[in-house]
């Protein structure tokens, strides 16, 4: 039989007179899965078609736990009902499960522990886990080790189970991990240093005493914290005594280890065999799903000891289909590797499903593509949809031709109309019925903290819903941004750290975040680094930073980045074409561009490039100078301002972009006229043109011989002519003013005109600021 055996297990249980208890914290105390968790607690989210809580209970049952207390906070009634109906409630299951409701004021695991203390339910050593654990680690072995240790050392109050993984393991949270300092011999945890992904932690401070007392220590940054703690009975009371302990790790463990008074010890159990991980965030949801499908959790795999009720058959390439043969696969559909398909699902012709899980009764329409995604029960995916790297809740109806980009979360029951487009990391839930009067809010008090956010978002809906197809019953949640977030937010939950914890592509995504291994970062790079990073990451529309961020971004561009950019470019093109064709309002078009930019996280210059390019390319080539001029005017008048509206006015750059584009396009002869039109529309200023003209790059410096260089030079000459005109104009203006004001010195007049220019510039700056404000308004 398979190697993972539990030969000695029975004896162990027999030895122990006392009942092994376990406490499950069935609340996550954070909102990383919102909006999926809006109507459902996280522990009832299905992973591989079985609720997380069932996986947790199975892990405990595997360890011979006999009594389980489930601490529920939000949606407690749902959890209770789920427990009642599950197989665990049957007498033969061997588990006694007691759900415990805690007050809504229980806001942290620490509060829950205090609650446990007040309930007085713990009789001896107990296992503390979260309701999102997937594990096949021999917890009974940990308990044995813990008890043995307790016999000699009464102060060893807790054993933390950690799993060796490796720093960049997919299952290891990048946003929330820790450095453990262990005594090599006793596995005592000497120091605990929480590590958040962003801002990157570069230093771990190890107290000197640790080194004094322990000659042989291990400092480990490659461990997955499984969230399994074997605790002694004192642990809840310690929480009670220290009412400010909120988090078990960052407060309690840290507190106990640093306290001079408590004199308690905490140990680690490094699990070398077995698997354990927590579904802490959408990213680990993805990783753990993949681990289950590729059988790391054996025997907790769909075809074996699956906690759900359905028996699956394991097929080549780690595909899992229900044994009852209820799945209907069309002849031409493709089911890729590492895929789980729920009972009675249907996959139509030419559809592709790969590295995904489908719930029960799902339908995937013809030519649809579902990749790296997790679909709940009863999801209907229309023909030709593309769903990538997303989580789609139960009962979602995805209209034909919809694209759901990576990282999107779609809550239960949403209807997306045909042709909808969800941008990367979009979060969508079902639209709430319009409230008749605000007074009825009381009933929904639970979600009051969400409401403010939602209301804010509601303003945005009109613009955002343009991306949703007709008949959508969906509500797009506001995108989080680093700037908008409340400052008091938990360090762990800050925007950038949260980015590291969400589902989606891994590496290229964070190219903008400096996440180099802490060990390789020298301390000098500290602050300055961070601030500049901030600028590039956070959507900042000030003109200065957009340019400064360029080199950073450019430096970070990798091969993946290029692919991303081209994707972005094509999306911008489509968006603009739509806007041009359907004659959107300028503002709306600008908003759409901004969201695209935020979603793909590309520098502003790219957007500007794309806009200029589109505008120029849209101008038809017409015979005859006159009609051509009209044509240009028509386009530039109508859409030119978009260049300004996308934010960050930088005329020089605009001209450069225009030049570079014209030099490589059939619109080369139009360069002069377009530039003039830009000038007419105040898109660029005279000074911009001059500044551009002065740049060596404008002459084509640095370019290789070839048509491009020639064209650059041609355009530069055009520019030169224009400047020449400016100069002439100025002199003529002088002349005219001279004529008007009769007899004033030409120098003075020049000064005056300069003043005028300055005034104009000032005005412009103001305008810029206004723009910025507008944008901020939009965003919030």
């Amino acid at each position, binding site marked *: *039989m398979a190697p993972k055996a539990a030969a000695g297990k029975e004896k162990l249980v027999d030895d122990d007179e006392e009942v092994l208890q376990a406490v499950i914290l069935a609340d996550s105390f954070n909102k990383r899965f919102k909006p999926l968790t809006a109507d459902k607690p996280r522990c009832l989210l299905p992973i591989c078609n079985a609720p997380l809580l069932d996986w947790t209970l199975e892990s405990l049952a595997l360890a011979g736990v006999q009594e389980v207390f489930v601490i529920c906070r939000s949606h407690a009634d749902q959890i209770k009902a789920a427990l009642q109906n599950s197989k665990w409630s049957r007498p*033969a299951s061997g588990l006694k499960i007691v759900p415990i409701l805690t007050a809504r004021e229980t806001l942290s695991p620490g509060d829950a522990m205090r609650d446990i203390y007040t309930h007085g339910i713990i009789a001896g050593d107990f296992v503390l886990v979260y309701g999102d654990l997937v594990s096949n680690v021999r917890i009974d072995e940990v308990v044995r080790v813990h008890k043995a240790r307790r016999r000699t050392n009464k102060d060893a109050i807790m054993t933390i189970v950690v799993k060796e993984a490796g720093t*960049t393991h997919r299952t290891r949270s990048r946003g929330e991990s820790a450095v453990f300092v262990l005594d090599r011999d006793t596995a005592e945890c000497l120091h605990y240093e929480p590590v958040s992904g962003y801002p990157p932690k570069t230093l771990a401070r190890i107290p000197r005493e640790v080194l004094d007392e322990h000659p042989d220590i291990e400092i480990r940054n490659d461990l997955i914290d499984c969230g399994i703690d074997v605790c002694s009975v004192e642990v809840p009371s310690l929480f009670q005594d220290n009412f400010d302990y909120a988090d078990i790790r960052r407060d309690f463990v840290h507190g106990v280890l640093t306290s001079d008074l408590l004199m308690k010890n905490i140990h680690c159990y490094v699990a070398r065999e077995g698997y354990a991980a927590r579904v802490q965030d959408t990213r680990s949801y993805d990783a753990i799903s993949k681990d289950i499908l590729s059988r790391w959790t054996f025997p907790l795999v769909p075809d074996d000891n699956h906690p759900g009720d359905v028996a699956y058959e394991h097929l080549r390439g*780690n595909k899992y289909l229900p044994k009852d043969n209820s799945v209907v696969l069309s002849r031409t559909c493709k089911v890729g590797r590492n895929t789980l398909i729920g009972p009675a699902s249907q996959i139509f012709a030419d559809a592709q499903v790969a590295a995904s899980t489908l719930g029960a009764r799902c339908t995937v329409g013809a030519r649809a593509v579902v990749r790296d995604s997790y679909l709940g029960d009863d999801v209907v995916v229309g023909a030709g949809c593309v769903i990538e790297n997303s989580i789609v809740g139960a009962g979602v109806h995805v209209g034909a031709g919809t694209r759901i980009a990576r990282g999107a979360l779609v809550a239960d029951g949403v209807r997306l109309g045909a042709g909808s487009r969800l941008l990367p990391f979009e979060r969508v839930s079902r639209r709430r019925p319009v409230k008749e009067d605000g007074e009825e809010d009381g009933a929904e008090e639970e979600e009051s903290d969400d409401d403010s956010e939602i209301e804010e978002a509601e303003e945005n809906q009109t613009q955002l819903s343009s991306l949703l197809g007709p008949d959508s019953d969906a509500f797009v949640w506001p995108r989080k941004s680093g700037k908008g977030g409340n400052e008091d937010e938990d360090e762990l939950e800050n925007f950038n750290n949260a980015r590291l914890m969400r589902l989606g592509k891994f590496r290229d995504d964070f190219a903008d975040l400096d996440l180099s291994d802490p060990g390789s970062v020298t301390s000098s790079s500290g602050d300055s680094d961070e601030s500049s990073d901030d600028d590039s990451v956070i959507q900042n529309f000030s003109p200065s930073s957009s340019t400064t961020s360029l080199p950073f971004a450019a430096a970070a561009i990798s091969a993946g980045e290029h692919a991303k950019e081209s994707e972005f470019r094509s999306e911008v093109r489509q968006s603009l074409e739509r806007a041009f064709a359907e004659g959107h309002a300028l503002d709306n078009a600008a908003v759409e561009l901004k969201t695209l930019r935020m979603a793909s996280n590309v520098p502003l210059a790219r957007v500007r490039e794309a806009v200029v390019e589109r505008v120029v390319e849209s101008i038809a080539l017409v015979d005859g100078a006159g009609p051509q001029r009209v044509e240009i005017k028509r386009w530039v008048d109508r859409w030119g301002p978009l260049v300004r509206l996308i934010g960050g006015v930088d005329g020089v750059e605009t001209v450069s972009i225009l030049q570079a584009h014209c030099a490589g396009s059939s619109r080369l002869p139009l360069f002069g006229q377009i530039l003039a039109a830009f000038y007419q529309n105040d898109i660029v200023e005279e000074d911009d043109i001059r500044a551009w003209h002065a740049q060596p790059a404008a002459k084509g410096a640095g370019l290789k011989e070839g048509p491009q260089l020639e064209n650059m030079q041609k355009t530069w000459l055009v520019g030169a002519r224009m400047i020449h005109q400016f100069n002439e104009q100025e002199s003529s203006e002088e002349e005219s003013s001279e004529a008007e004001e009769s007899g004033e010195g030409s120098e003075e007049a020049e000064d005056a005109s300069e003043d005028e220019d300055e005034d104009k510039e000032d005005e412009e700056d103001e305008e810029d600021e206004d723009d910025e404000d507008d944008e901020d308004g939009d965003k919030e």
Partner: protein
Amino acid sequence: MAPESHSSGSQRAVETLAAKLRRRQVLGSRETALETVLVLRQVVSKARFTNIHQLVEIIRGVGRKLVEAQPKEHTVGNTVRKLLHHVREEYNNASKGTAASAANVFSISKFVLQGQPRKQVTAQKAESALVLREDDPDDPDSFARTLKPVLMEAIQVILDELETVYENISKSAKDHIHSDEIILTIGKSHTVETFLKSAAHYHNFTVIVAESGPSYGGHDMAQSLSSAGVSTFLVPDSSIYALMSRVNKVIIGAHAVLANGGMYAITGSLLAATAARAHSTPVVVCAGQFKLTPLWNLYHEYGALDFADPSSVLGFEEGDLVDKVDVVNPFYDYVRPDLVDVYITNDGDHPPPSIYRIIKESYDDEDNEL
């Protein structure tokens, strides 16, 4: 009288074993078979039934539950089938006196069915003097009361058979292995281990043990054999082919023997069997009768190879690789019937094509699907 009316105590025993099977806490074919018999004994002793159909239904129900819990451990189903066979046999023996053998109308289809393999009617046990009264309204327990002692006896027979299975297989060991032979085996199999040790009492021979990665059961096997005084070499699996030219016989164990004569055995067995075929080395498989499984086409089921977790092949800590590589770690190999020369069971030696016959003799067809 509903069939599920047997007491909650035996119900719990069933559930416990089912859970253990699901969680892979009972391992090894014989171990599993023994546990199954014990649970069945408990079930039968507590069961309340008034006729044979109820009894059969009760046993089947338990069997179904256990098989569902661990469909890859075939000995569970086999044991249940065996018991059912015995139950029917005992019942037929006992009821011969009372009821005239039911509806024995001769028809063409009956005639055709004469071809079915069946056990030669063995010398009747002392004609049982049981009087069975089925569905007796006055005394509903009478049937159970009369039949139970016989059933307990039958279960004891199965138990005894399981307990002595290794010895019985090893009885013929000395005839299969001769002095100065070189034997190749792979992995750790209790059956083969006992077999080789028993032969070692009579002959001096050499055993080459392939370690059978990634479970490396071969290490234990080599240890155990050499401590029993057998001259033993431990070799990596990759050298099996190279060594085969010097090997006289390949002796391996089986996980399940199928009706078509093929078998499931620890990974590497197919490698050894194929290498043996290339060198025309005989392949001898030692397997208890309880491993004979009335399935023909199990090899169609990809999952039947029982894919374990990849950690023994690629460490979980190799984080970067885990993302990019799909690791496949099957626990068993399917060895085609034409690669096996003979099966040595506790019921004699059989060539692969006769396996189906023994299976037909030891189980009833209607139980193939529990």
